[in-house]
């Protein structure tokens, strides 16, 4: 499509209207991007420059990775980073395996118990379980301070399940017939027919899961001791609550972590999302839509 796709019946927009639209969009884009820019710039500046400038900079005069070096030497952030990466990778794999199998079973007609199970699952959308009983369940299963507690209670998202089921249902019935005639069982059909056809949906759903695991901090704050914390919870404690980082290496234990280090933690917590974002973006409108319209 060419850059300008104005249909012939539409009148030429007035100059003023176009200017107003342009300004509005520019303001929106700036409001979204400036916070990120300030954080990255501040993390790259020297602590002296940040203090002189009153707590932040928009463009560091002498860019330095000092804050990052100090942060990784400390050990807390490095450990938390590994926890986050581990939980995200394992959690996404487990969630995908369970969601795919369940969605496949629910997408096929004539599966034993399919209808009632679907209703039971959709009902949980209407009436989510409470925070206290969930906590007690995790506790009674003996999962406190066990990384499983960060994954098991949020294993399957109903939304993602519905998205995948909708996608699986859109696969033509003939393909299943053909595979069955070739002697393929249910599992073989899932692996060789259904999954290769659903790459876009699988990409979107696994990225949704990965982002959710990466961003989660509340579960960690109630289920885990502080030596088991993921990055977001560390970020919350040291940046939002201003707690002291015991081993920040800055030698100044009376102060909370310096601004530059706080911003560096913030950047590290954001970067994985920024990295997968372009891939995510290619698919997600499609994926979200099939799901949203079905539900």
């Amino acid at each position, binding site marked *: 499509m060419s850059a300008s796709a104005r249909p012939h019946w539409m009148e030429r927009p007035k100059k003023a209207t176009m200017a107003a639209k342009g300004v509005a*969009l520019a303001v929106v884009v700036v409001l979204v991007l400036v916070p990120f820019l300030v954080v990255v710039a501040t993390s790259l500046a020297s602590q002296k420059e940040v203090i002189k400038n009153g707590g932040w900079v928009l463009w560091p005069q002498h860019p330095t990775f000092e804050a990052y070096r100090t942060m990784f030497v400390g050990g807390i952030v490095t450990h938390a980073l590994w926890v986050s990466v581990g939980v995200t990778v394992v959690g996404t794999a487990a969630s995908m395996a369970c969601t795919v199998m369940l969605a496949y079973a629910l997408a096929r007609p004539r599966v034993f118990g399919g209808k009632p199970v679907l209703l039971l699952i959709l009902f949980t959308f209407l009436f989510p*379980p409470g925070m206290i009983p969930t906590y007690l369940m995790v506790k009674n299963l003996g999962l406190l301070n066990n990384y499983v507690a960060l994954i098991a209670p949020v294993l399957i998202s109903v939304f993602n399940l519905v998205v995948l089921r909708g996608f699986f249902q859109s696969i033509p019935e003939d393909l299943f017939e053909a595979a069955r005639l070739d002697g393929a069982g249910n599992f073989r059909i899932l692996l060789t027919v259904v999954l290769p056809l659903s790459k876009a949906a699988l990409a979107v759903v696994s990225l949704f899961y990965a982002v959710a695991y990466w961003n989660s901090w509340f579960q960690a704050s109630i289920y885990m001791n502080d030596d088991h914390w993921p990055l977001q919870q560390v970020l919350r404690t040291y940046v939002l609550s201003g707690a002291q980082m015991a081993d920040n290496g800055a030698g100044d234990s009376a102060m909370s972590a310096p601004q530059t280090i706080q911003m560096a933690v913030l950047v590290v917590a954001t970067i994985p999302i920024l990295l997968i974002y372009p891939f995510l973006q290619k698919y997600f409108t499609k994926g*979200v839509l099939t799901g949203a319209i079905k539900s």
Partner: protein
Amino acid sequence: MIPGVVYFLVFHYGVLFGNIIAFKDYVPFDGFFGSAWVGVSNFTSMFGDPAFWHAALNTIEIAVLQLVFYFPAPLGLALLLHSLTSTTIRRVVQSVVYLPHFMSWVIVVALAQQMLGDTGVLNSALSGSGLHTVDIIGNPTLFKPLTVLEVIWKDCGWGTIIFLASLTQVDEQLYEASAIDGAGPWRRFWHVTLPAIRPIIILLLIMRIGDILSVGFEQILLQRNSVGPQAAEIIDTFVYYKGLIAGNFGLGAAAGLVKGVIGAILVFSANRVSHRLGEQGVYS
């Protein structure tokens, strides 16, 4: 299928069943089944607690603010994006505005402090130009509008997706016909666009109303300490502090249960009303 079903049985139905501790005096030592039944005393003490009513009031205030200011925002942005004739600009803007949705609340709140706090970008710009600084973070009176602003920053762009999709499904010929009949941009918007996307607006409204008592637990918990419970206690944080932090599990579960039941009733009624009005609703 089995692992998935087991998950729902344990972490949804098992947990749902766990709500019975709302009717018990839960003592960790006696355990889940051993604790004594106390009937509805958790509920009566909750309803007798002014802190609960305060939390309920705060929840409703924030919910109303969100409904009035946040709910229409994505629709406005979607209409603006849809009206662009340049697809390149539209794509670039879309990529930018979807981004904040994928940030955790910890990051969003940290960014808000960095921008609006007393040493933040806004205030140093104000004092730099000789103006008074404004105390936004940590100011109880501004807390509720601040939370709405944060929600708009985070999710307004993402919210446009569903509106944009329904906007592209409007029949182009309807626009053309009305343009030929002499309808200007505003009349085309009023008589073609709006009726076409009305079902989706109503659908989203129903879903929002069913979920209206959830006004951002993570977001508000993160900021509650900086403004105090007077301004920032909502039902979810009440459950958290009374139940998990203070260890009064029965009372916390009771508050959570009340919220869940009200939410379910709201979905049913909103759906019923939309059927009455001749709209589709979420389910039939």
